[in-house]
């Protein structure tokens, strides 16, 4: 019988194939990755699909935490002046064997050099052959701060910095810093196919890339040669790509996938009620806030910012916008961040006092301002439009007329960088577990043209956060950051609103999945039986 006839005959009889011996896990992801070279990308969709599965980094964040721990480097030494980092590499790590690449040697210092020099050097031969940008690397300022990367022997790599960066190892643990194979890159370069590094990835990670069909599926095999074999408990890892959150929720309930992400608040109740599912939650490592543009009147006066701040009914916003799935925010960073100052209290909700403050500051009743609301749903703010309407209402009570403004997302950010707003809704999700990623990146003087949407540059504050970045001792840093938080609270360049709660729906058969504070979905150490 021909295979065609046989297939036709059996098609009607069997409805699902049996996969008795292999362990499979289907993950309903939210979008197609742009490619598989993590260095070129900035979004979680790209990182989950490539960096967490196929690749490793020198250091990696512990699963479910924000601490950097050894990965491809087993240990590192920091010089006395804090400018030289020496990484000792792990022995016996194998790169993936695939139908497009067979490694002849184990991982060594050359691979680290290739990975970093490609990102540092615009004239690197590989970058000439395949022109690309490394936005995250540049955004973190690493292209400017890393003076050189050298190897002292096959298993030792030395990074020299231009300035002390207390978060350096954390930065290298981030997803974009995935280590590529220098041998594979050579092979691609010789074959004139450098661009394939983005389509046919080779890494050292727990899963081996098998096949990708845009908008449909990414297939991975468990890496049988992984250097931490106990971390690989799945034979076939399958990403099923579904852009619609409701459809993902339905697929999970129907058992067509085992883990998914970002459920809509409206779907939560039915997911939690389903006996076959687990929906663990964690406070999000993010912050949604209002940024006041202090370069514009009347926001240049502290009393005005204070008045607007105390007129915000945060509890009502948490109920309506986050539908309970959020935590009231007090400081400029989440409580799970080390150095967070518990002793700082929010100003009480007091419209009467706010009115007095405004009067004292000479702000007339009926003053018009613009309030910007994002057009997109972000992890830290599920419904900016609704939040803006509630704020409009709150501020109307103290005589401030807010006009809600919205632009397409790219345009919104661009115009906000240019400072065209009065007050705007924005937020942040932590990148690397370091307090500087909040207090320095978002409110420091160096970021006034960048992520500092308040355009706030306070000498006292800035001295503290700059000093904190330049020391490496954690207790000392914590003290400086606590002082900085007090200044931030006093000067009110922002009104923190909420940290959203992360919900992680999965089938109850899935074991060992840890919610990442950074919102990454990692399947090493996860099993499904």
């Amino acid at each position: 019988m021909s295979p065609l006839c046989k297939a036709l005959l059996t098609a009607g009889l069997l409805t699902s194939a049996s996969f008795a011996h292999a362990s499979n896990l289907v993950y309903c992801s939210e979008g197609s990755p742009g490619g598989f070279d993590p260095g070129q990308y900035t979004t979680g969709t790209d990182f989950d699909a490539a960096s967490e599965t196929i690749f490793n980094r020198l250091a990696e964040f512990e699963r479910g935490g924000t601490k950097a721990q050894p990965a491809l480097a087993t240990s590192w030494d920091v010089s006395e002046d804090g400018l030289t980092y020496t990484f000792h590499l792990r022995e016996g790590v194998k790169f993936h064997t695939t139908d497009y690449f067979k490694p002849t040697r184990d991982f060594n210092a050359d691979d680290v050099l290739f990975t970093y020099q490609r990102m540092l050097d615009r004239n690197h031969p590989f970058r000439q052959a395949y022109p690309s940008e490394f936005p995250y690397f540049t955004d973190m300022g690493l292209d400017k701060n890393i003076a050189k990367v050298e190897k002292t022997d096959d298993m030792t790599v030395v990074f020299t910095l231009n300035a002390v960066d207390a978060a350096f190892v954390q930065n290298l643990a981030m997803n974009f810093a995935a280590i590529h194979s220098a041998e594979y890159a050579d092979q691609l370069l010789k074959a004139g196919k450098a661009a394939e590094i983005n389509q046919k990835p080779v890494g050292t990670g727990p899963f081996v890339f098998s096949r990708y069909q845009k908008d449909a599926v990414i297939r991975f095999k468990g890496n049988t040669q992984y250097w931490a074999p106990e971390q690989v408990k799945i034979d076939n890892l399958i990403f099923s790509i579904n852009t619609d959150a409701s459809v993902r929720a339905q697929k999970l309930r129907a058992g067509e996938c085992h883990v998914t992400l970002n459920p809509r608040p409206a779907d939560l109740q039915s997911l939690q009620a389903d006996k076959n599912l687990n929906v663990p939650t964690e406070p999000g490592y993010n912050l949604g806030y209002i940024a006041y543009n202090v370069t514009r009147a009347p926001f240049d006066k502290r009393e005005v910012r204070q008045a607007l701040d105390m007129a915000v009914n945060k509890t009502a916003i948490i109920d309506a916008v986050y539908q309970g799935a959020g935590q009231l925010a007090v400081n400029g960073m989440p409580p799970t961040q080390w150095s967070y100052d518990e002793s700082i209290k929010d100003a009480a909700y007091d419209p009467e006092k706010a009115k007095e403050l405004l009067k004292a500051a000479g702000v007339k009743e009926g003053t018009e301002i613009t309030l910007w609301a994002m057009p997109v749903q972000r992890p830290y703010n599920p419904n900016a439009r609704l939040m803006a309407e509630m704020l409009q209402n709150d501020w109307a009570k103290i005589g401030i007329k807010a006009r809600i403004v919205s632009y397409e997302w790219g345009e919104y950010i661009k115009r906000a960088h240019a400072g065209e707003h009065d007050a705007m809704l924005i937020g942040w999700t932590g990148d690397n577990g370091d307090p500087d990623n909040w207090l320095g990146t978002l409110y420091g003087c160096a970021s006034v043209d960048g992520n500092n949407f308040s355009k706030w540059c306070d000498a006292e504050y800035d001295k503290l956060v700059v000093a904190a970045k330049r020391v490496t001792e954690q207790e000392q840093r914590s003290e400086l950051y606590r002082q900085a938080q007090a200044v931030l609270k006093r000067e009110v360049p922002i009104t923190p609103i909420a940290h959203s709660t992360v919900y992680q729906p999965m089938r109850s058969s899935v074991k060992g999945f840890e919610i990442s504070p950074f919102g990454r979905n990692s399947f090493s150490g996860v099993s499904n039986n």
Partner: protein
Amino acid sequence: MLSFIARRLGLLIPTFFGVTLLTFALIRLIPGDPVEVMMGERRVDPEMHAQAMERLGLNKPLYQQYFDYIGQLASGNLGESLRSRESVWREFLTLFPATVELALAALLFAGTLGVIAGVVAALKRGSLFDHGVMGISLTGYSMPIFWWGLLLIMFFSVGLGWTPVSGRIDLLYDIPPVTGFMLIDTLLSDEPGAFGNALRHLILPAIVLGTIPLAVIARMTRSAMLEVLREDYIRTARAKGLSQARVVFVHGLRNALIPVLTVFGLQIGSLLAGAVLTETIFSWPGIGKWLIESIGARDYPVVQNGILLIACLVILVNFTVDILYGLANPRIRHQK
């Protein structure tokens, strides 16, 4: 006939240029640039931004970009996606069969059911069935696709568990793409049960996508049939004592189907438009979903050339339908 074809062909060229200008302008009229969209709330280093724009060729004046674009098209190059760096033509080719498969299934569903319902309604004019068909088709025509799709998923997939929620096949089947048509590929793959599984995945999306064409075809068939049944030759046929079936199907339906054929052609456009939504609901990896994601990412080459390819397709189908119609109906081709 030749001059008729030539006239139609002559129209194609300005239409084609109109479409290129329109797609080029449309995507650029929407504010936001791709580098900013890619970075989200993160700062874009001005130097990096300038470099990226240069590499993408977006720092040139608009007219220059348009001429570059036309030049590329003339050399048969559709450019590459800004996001994946994959050639637009290759991406189109890998995703297009999924859309064709879905559209054909929808058309089959809409065509058979629509023609049958239309004919029966016409024969039983004024009956309960007739009113039913007219009512349902009006509802179907005004149904928001998105809501309709989710409703069917809730009922049949989650509630009853009869059909899968989304996708083209249970992903535990590892079907290597050969033709891109899942039904054919499953037969080639020799995996037992895969064909049936793929078929079950096709049912709901085909129904959702076919709903509007079904309504249109049913109504169109009914009115065409009513018209034809009034004609003298039908009365003659009846008078000759031919059987009812012969009168209806051979004499009636064959003539009634001529206008229905045009409607079929016109439906290709709305099928492709509907595919954008249907594919999004059912995570169907076709060109509709591809376009939606590319618009979100401001992936200019994909959006302008993707739309261009689809427009060409619609133009081509309409052209073919016109010709077929001209062949079937001599009166048309002599009209100026």
